[in-house]
């Protein structure tokens, strides 16, 4: 872009394009509105996914508890939908009044998709009302399947709405390369703008992320109800609900880094400087914070499982292994959190003897980090596997062989991860990048095949005793709260990374931000904004849950024995 155009744009902008928001400024106002809207949106898109999955398990597994669980999840959605819409409206009003020129540019390209978005949101809302209020009416036989179909439809509408909104923000990040500052927005074909470089990676990343987020919030809700429960039956119900929510959150979390890797690769392919800004430029410290948060997630998630094994007869067989899993997780977290290349002052450079620390620098590279995170994922999967088979003894004749094959798969997957991790130090970067695919492939294959074998081995298994749902110490529930807060904060942090790499551009290298807020703030300021947004969001969610409790009693039914509830996936 020519200097002259930028200057002319700046001159025009100062006249009409921007307004300021009192006290906190327009950037902070937009930040808060966008982020809280996004948090609610993630919640109302993530929860229906596993509500409908839970309902399907209830139908086809003939287990009413899952059906009631799905209904209770859905009840939480009703008010959350209104909050999502309200914050969405706040965002649109703020954008159109504070950043009117930029908003006009976006609407010139995406106007039609915005109309479709509104129409779909309308349809989605009414599908939700039909889904929830029709729950007891369409409860049996074919009508129950129709009801399940409504749930699927709800997810289709919601996912489409998200895909549309994603196209706007990904266009801002990675507009097609043939579009220049001189291109008139009205001449840009809508579909061409939608199909930009990062649209589909963001779609997939958010889809998975929403499930993680929804699971975490629901498990936090369940843990609150657990702590507030007055009877053992109620406690057992919410213990189980918290477990299911956490199971879904952690399961989706395991595949989230792979989607994130794809997104990162697309960003690099689109524009190296954008990728470098993200990973090695002024945002480099952000990844150390991210590593810390992920470590908290892995540790808290595993801790919850290990504590949960205390309520499973037979789990004591596996307790000695947990300390080794903890060792792998802690070491993995330390490696993942090791900085590599970052902006350092002269004293720091002098102290390190160069741009990298002589010893720790070797752990800061992607070879080490990919190895660490893959081993952490394997360890977490092993934790879950031990939890899952804690109270059963397999009776199939090939049980011992099957267990040995499972152990072999873990060893082979870990060996592949380590082999490519070490080999990555001796090859060119372009080759090294390809190695992460082998590492990820080995871990995913291990997870899939070990699970398959485990399910087959569990057929007709002898029970060592029913799970004592509700027999959980309160500290396990606080771990779920920490998980929910950390997931929410992490979402805010990664949103800052995604948005911040545009730096001083509304639309990357096409439309420059010429306000006094154009500089991308440092991480400290971003952290204060993120914490503020998380606090507002969680306060509103708590209020919504309280309202939900006022409006209707929980779906907990004490007549059903809680100890019969199976593991997820059984």
């Amino acid at each position, binding site marked *: 872009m020519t200097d002259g155009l930028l200057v002319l744009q700046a001159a025009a902008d100062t006249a009409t394009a921007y307004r300021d928001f009192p006290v906190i400024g327009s950037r902070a106002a937009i930040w808060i509105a966008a982020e809280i809207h996004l948090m609610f949106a993630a919640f109302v898109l993530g929860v229906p996914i596993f509500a409908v999955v839970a309902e399907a398990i209830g139908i086809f597994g003939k287990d009413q508890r899952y059906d009631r669980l799905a209904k209770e999840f859905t009840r939480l959605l009703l008010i959350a939908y209104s909050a999502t819409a309200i914050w969405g409206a706040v965002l649109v009003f703020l954008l159109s009044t504070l950043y009117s020129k930029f908003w006009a540019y976006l609407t010139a390209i995406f106007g039609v998709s915005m109309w479709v978005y509104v129409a779909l949101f309308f349809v989605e809302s009414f599908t939700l009302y039909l889904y929830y209020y029709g729950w007891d009416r369409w409860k049996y036989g074919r009508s129950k399947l129709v009801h399940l179909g409504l749930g699927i439809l709800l997810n289709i509408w919601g996912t489409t709405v998200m895909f549309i909104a994603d196209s706007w923000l990904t266009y801002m990040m990675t507009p097609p390369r043939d579009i220049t500052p001189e291109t008139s927005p009205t001449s840009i074909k809508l579909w061409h703008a939608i199909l930009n470089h990062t649209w589909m990676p963001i779609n997939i990343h958010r889809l998975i992320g929403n499930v993680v987020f929804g699971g975490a919030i629901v498990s936090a809700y369940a843990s609150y109800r657990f702590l507030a429960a007055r009877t053992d039956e109620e406690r057992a119900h919410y213990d189980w609900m918290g477990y299911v929510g956490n199971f879904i959150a952690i399961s989706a979390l395991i595949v989230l880094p792979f989607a994130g890797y794809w997104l990162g690769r697309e960003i690099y392919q689109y524009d190296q400087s954008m990728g470098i800004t993200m990973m090695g430029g002024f945002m480099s410290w952000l990844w150390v914070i991210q590593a810390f948060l992920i470590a908290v997630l892995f540790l808290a998630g595993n801790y919850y499982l290990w504590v949960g094994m205390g309520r499973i007869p037979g789990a004591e067989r596996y307790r000695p292994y947990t300390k080794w899993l903890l060792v792998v997780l802690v070491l993995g977290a330390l490696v993942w959190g090791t900085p590599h290349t970052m902006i350092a*002052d002269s004293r720091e450079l002098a102290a390190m003897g160069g741009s990298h620390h002589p010893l720790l620098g070797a752990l800061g590279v992607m070879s080490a980090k990919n190895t660490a995170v893959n081993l952490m994922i394997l360890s977490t999967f092993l934790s879950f596997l031990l939890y899952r088979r804690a109270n059963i003894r397999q009776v199939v004749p090939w049980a011992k062989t099957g267990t040995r094959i499972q152990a072999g798969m873990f060893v082979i997957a870990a060996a592949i991860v380590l082999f490519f991790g070490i080999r990555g130090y001796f090859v060119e970067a372009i080759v090294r990048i390809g190695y992460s695919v082998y590492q990820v492939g080995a871990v995913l294959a291990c997870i899939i095949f070990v699970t398959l074998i485990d399910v087959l081995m569990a057929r007709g298994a002898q029970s060592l005793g029913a799970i004592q749902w509700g027999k959980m110490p309160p500290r396990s529930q606080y771990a779920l709260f920490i998980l929910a807060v950390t997931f929410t904060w992490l979402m805010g942090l990664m949103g800052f990374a995604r948005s911040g790499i545009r730096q001083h551009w509304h639309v990357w290298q096409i439309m420059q931000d010429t306000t006094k807020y154009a500089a991308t703030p440092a991480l400290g300021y971003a952290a204060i904004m993120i914490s503020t947004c998380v606090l507002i969001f969680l306060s509103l969610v708590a209020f919504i849950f309280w309202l939900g409790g006022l409006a209707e009693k929980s779906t907990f039914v004490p007549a059903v024995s809680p100890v019969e509830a199976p593991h997820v996936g059984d």
Partner: protein
Amino acid sequence: MWATNLRIIGIVLGVLALYTLIANKIPQVQSEVPKALNLSSNVTPEQLVSAGDQLFHGAGGCTACHGLGTRAPNLLTDEKGLGPIGARCGKREPGKDCKAYLYESLINPRAYVVAGYEPIMPEMGRTLSPQQLWALVAFLESQGATVDVSASDIPPAAGPAAAAASSGGGGGPGKIADGSTDPMAIIRGAGCLGCHKIGTEGGAIAPNLTHVGSRLSQALIRECILKPDTRVSKGYEKFVGVMPKTFGNMLTGAQLEALVQFLASHK
């Protein structure tokens, strides 16, 4: 139940406070906006070098790769025994002088990828103006070669608004902050915060000026602004020569004195 509620609130607030605290304890780096340059027709090589220096170490984003020894060749220090970029740029391509080589490397980086490195450099013409590109060329030439970029190489900036948007990279006395004697306006206009930190603002690659008045007298502060290399703070020896030596030409007398008094008052 109240005890449980309070415990939950305490955990939520505690976790938020912990994350916020950690994020505020690490080095704070802000991504600055590259300032538009308005270089006059009688711009001097020193002014170009100064402007290029600010871009290189600041909003140009060059230091994210160059100088680390892994992602991209060192430019300001020795690269595999060949010296800094100025010492080798004229020999890289037969028949191409240093100036032409550097300019083409900026606008079309894939044309000359140094062996052992990947073609990861972005086309700088997409983010920087021709004036900024030529300022960078001048700065890179100053690393061991003769600066031969002149006003005739640089296309004029467009429009009268250019003057209003100009930075301290070029022009004569009073060009910084439009001649304002507001010390913080001068500091921002001159790009000091790209390297120095004052209070909560600024970078960390040059001495922190928050309490500079307790370390240096007014006379020494004045000397450090006009002749930056005469006194080098301990721990910053590697950065000798990085601070522009052109502030004596770019600040008015009133600006210089306002700046000196302002810094001296920071005890």
